[in-house]
C-alpha cells in the first residue's frame, strides 16, 4: 500500500495518573489505517484498545504522540475544528448510548439538528438512514422498546447521519448475543463495502476480527504485540498475546499432555469436510485432539485445532501429505 494513510498514529502514549501511581494505558503505539479498510484492534481487557480508539476522536487525550487525519493533527486541534472532525469520524459504543427520551427517528436526526439542517431535509435523510439499517418501521419507537441489536442499529444509523468517512466501533457487539452479533457485523461490512466507510473496530473476540476485518493489531499491555493482515496474523501467530487470544496454545496445566503437536488452521478456505475422520480412516492414524477452537461461519470452518504428532516419522509424513492434499495449513509445534 503506497497510498497515504487516512489515519496515521505515531508513537502514541497515554499515561493515567491515579494519585501516586502511573498507569501506562498506551505505550508508543504507531499504526496506519488506510481508506476503505476495516481495521481491527484486539486485546484482552485492560490492553488499552478502548483508550486507543477514544484517542482517535479525542474523547481521551493522549499524553504524547500524534494522530494525523488526512495529514491534520487531531491532538492539537481547536474545539471548533475538533467538532468538525468528529462529524467525519463518528463512533458507536458497546452500550449504544442512545438518547432515551427521543424516538428512534429523533435520535438519528440529532447529528443533523446540531449542524442546522432544515427539518424536512433532515427527516428525509433519517428515513434513508433507517432504511439502511432496516428499521423503517421503528421510527417512532423509543429506544427502551427495542432489543439490543435494534438499538445498535439505531446507533449505527445515527453515526452515519453526519456522512462520516470513518466509523469507530468501540466493542459494538460485545453486549449482544452471537446471532445479533452476526447481523451487526454483516451490517458493518455492508456499510464498509457499499458506502466506502473506513471502519476501525476494537473487540476482544477473535471471531469478530476473523469475520470482517482486513487488517488487525493485537494490543497487549498497551503495546502492539503484532500487526498484519488478518490471514497473516491468524495463521502465523508470532506473539504470545496472539496465541492466548486465538486459544492456539492452551494454558496447559501440569497433568496435561505435552510434547510435539501439530496445529491445524481452518481459515475458511477449506470446504467443510470431515478431515479428522479422513485421517483416521484413510491413513489409519489414530488422532489425539489436544484442543480445538472452531467455528462455522457461512458454511465455512474457521479456527484452530491442536493434535498430538504421530509417533512414527512414517505416519507423520503421511499426515503431512494428506493435509497438503486437503490444503489445510499446519505447523508443527512443541507444547510445554
Amino acid at each position, binding site marked *: 500500500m503506497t497510498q497515504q494513510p487516512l489515519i496515521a498514529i505515531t508513537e502514541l502514549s497515554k499515561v493515567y495518573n491515579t494519585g501516586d501511581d502511573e498507569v501506562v494505558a498506551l505505550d508508543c503505539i504507531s499504526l496506519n489505517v488506510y481508506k476503505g479498510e476495516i481495521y481491527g484492534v484486539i486485546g484482552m481487557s485492560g490492553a488499552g484498545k478502548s483508550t486507543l480508539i477514544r484517542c482517535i476522536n479525542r474523547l481521551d487525550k493522549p499524553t504524547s504522540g500524534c494522530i494525523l487525519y488526512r495529514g491534520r493533527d487531531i491532538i492539537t486541534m481547536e474545539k471548533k475544528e475538533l467538532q468538525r472532525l468528529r462529524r467525519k469520524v463518528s*463512533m458507536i459504543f458497546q*452500550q449504544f*448510548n442512545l*438518547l432515551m*427520551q427521543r424516538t428512534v427517528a429523533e435520535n438519528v436526526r440529532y*447529528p443533523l439538528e*446540531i449542524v442546522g439542517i432544515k427539518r424536512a431535509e433532515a427527516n428525509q435523510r433519517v428515513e434513508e438512514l433507517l432504511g439502511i439499517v432496516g428499521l423503517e418501521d421503528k421510527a417512532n419507537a423509543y429506544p*427502551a*422498546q427495542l432489543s439490543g441489536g435494534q438499538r445498535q442499529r439505531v*446507533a449505527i444509523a445515527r453515526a452515519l447521519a453526519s456522512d462520516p468517512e470513518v466509523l469507530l466501533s468501540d466493542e459494538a457487539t460485545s453486549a449482544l448475543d452471537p446471532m445479533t452479533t452476526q447481523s451487526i457485523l454483516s451490517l458493518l461490512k455492508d456499510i464498509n463495502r457499499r458506502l466506502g466507510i473506513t471502519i476501525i473496530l476494537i473487540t476482544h473476540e477473535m471471531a469478530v476480527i476473523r469475520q470482517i476485518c482486513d487488517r488487525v493489531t493485537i494490543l497487549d499491555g498497551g503495546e502492539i504485540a503484532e500487526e498484519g493482515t488478518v490471514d497473516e496474523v491468524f495463521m502465523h501467530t508470532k506473539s504470545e498475546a496472539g496465541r492466548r487470544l486465538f486459544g492456539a496454545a492452551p494454558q496447559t496445566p501440569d497433568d496435561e499432555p505435552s510434547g510435539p503437536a501439530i496445529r491445524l488452521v481452518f481459515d475458511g478456505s477449506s470446504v467443510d469436510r470431515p478431515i479428522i475422520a479422513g485421517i483416521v480412516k484413510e491413513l489409519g492414524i489414530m488422532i489425539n485432539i489436544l484442543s480445538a477452537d472452531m467455528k462455522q461461519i457461512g458454511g465455512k470452518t474457521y479456527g484452530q485445532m491442536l493434535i498430538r504428532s504421530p509417533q512414527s516419522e512414517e505416519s507423520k509424513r503421511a499426515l503431512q501429505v494428506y493435509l497438503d492434499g486437503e490444503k489445510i495449513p499446519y505447523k508443527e509445534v512443541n507444547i510445554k
Partner: protein
Amino acid sequence: MSQAQLSNLLLNGLWDTLYMTVPSTLLAYLIGMPLGILFVVTSEGHILPKPRLNAGLGVVINFLRSIPFIILLAMLIPVTRIVMGSGIGTRSLIFPLFISAFPFVARMVEGSLNEVDRGVVEAAESMGSSTWQIIFKVMLPEALPSLINGAAIVTVTILGYTAMASAAGGGGLGSIAITKGLNVRKMDVMYAASITLVALVQIITISGNRANKKLDHRKR
C-alpha cells in the same frame, strides 16, 4: 367564626401562600438552575472541567444550604428591607424564600443531571456537539422527568418554609394556623388551615409524579 368567614380566611391564606411560593420558586430556578448546570459541567471528567470554579460553587451551595430557614430569615431582614422595601410582610418574604431555595434548586438540578448516562453525553460529544448543544439538547431533555420531580419537591419545601412566615409578619395558611388558630385556641381554624396546606402539598406531589411518568420514555 361562621362557615363563610372561615372559607374566606382560608381562601385569602391560600392566595398569600401561593403569592409567596410561586414567585420565589421561579426566581430560585432562574438562579439555581444555571448554577446546578454549571456545577455539573465543570465537575471533573465532564464536558467543561473547571476544578477550582467547581470547588468554589460547591462550598457556596453547601454553606447556604446548611443555614436553617428561620435563622436565614432573621439574618436577612436588613438585606430584605433594602431589596423589597420592607423587612417583613408577605411580599417581603419572597426574598428570603428565594435566597434559601436557590442553593437547594442547584443541588436538585445537579442530582437530576448527574442521573443522565455519561455514555450518552459522550456520544453527543463524539458527534461534534457544542457545549451548549450538549446541555440543551442532551442533558436537560434526558433529565426532564427527574427535573420535574425535583421541581415538585422544591415547591413543597418552599411551601413548608412559608408556614414559618408568621415569624416575619407574613400571611398565608401556615401563619393563619398559628396566629389565628393555635395562639387563640381556635382549633377548628388551625386544623382547617393545616388541612388546606396538606391538600396543596398533595396536589403538587401527585402532579409531579404524573408528569414524571408521562414524560419518561425510559420504561417500556
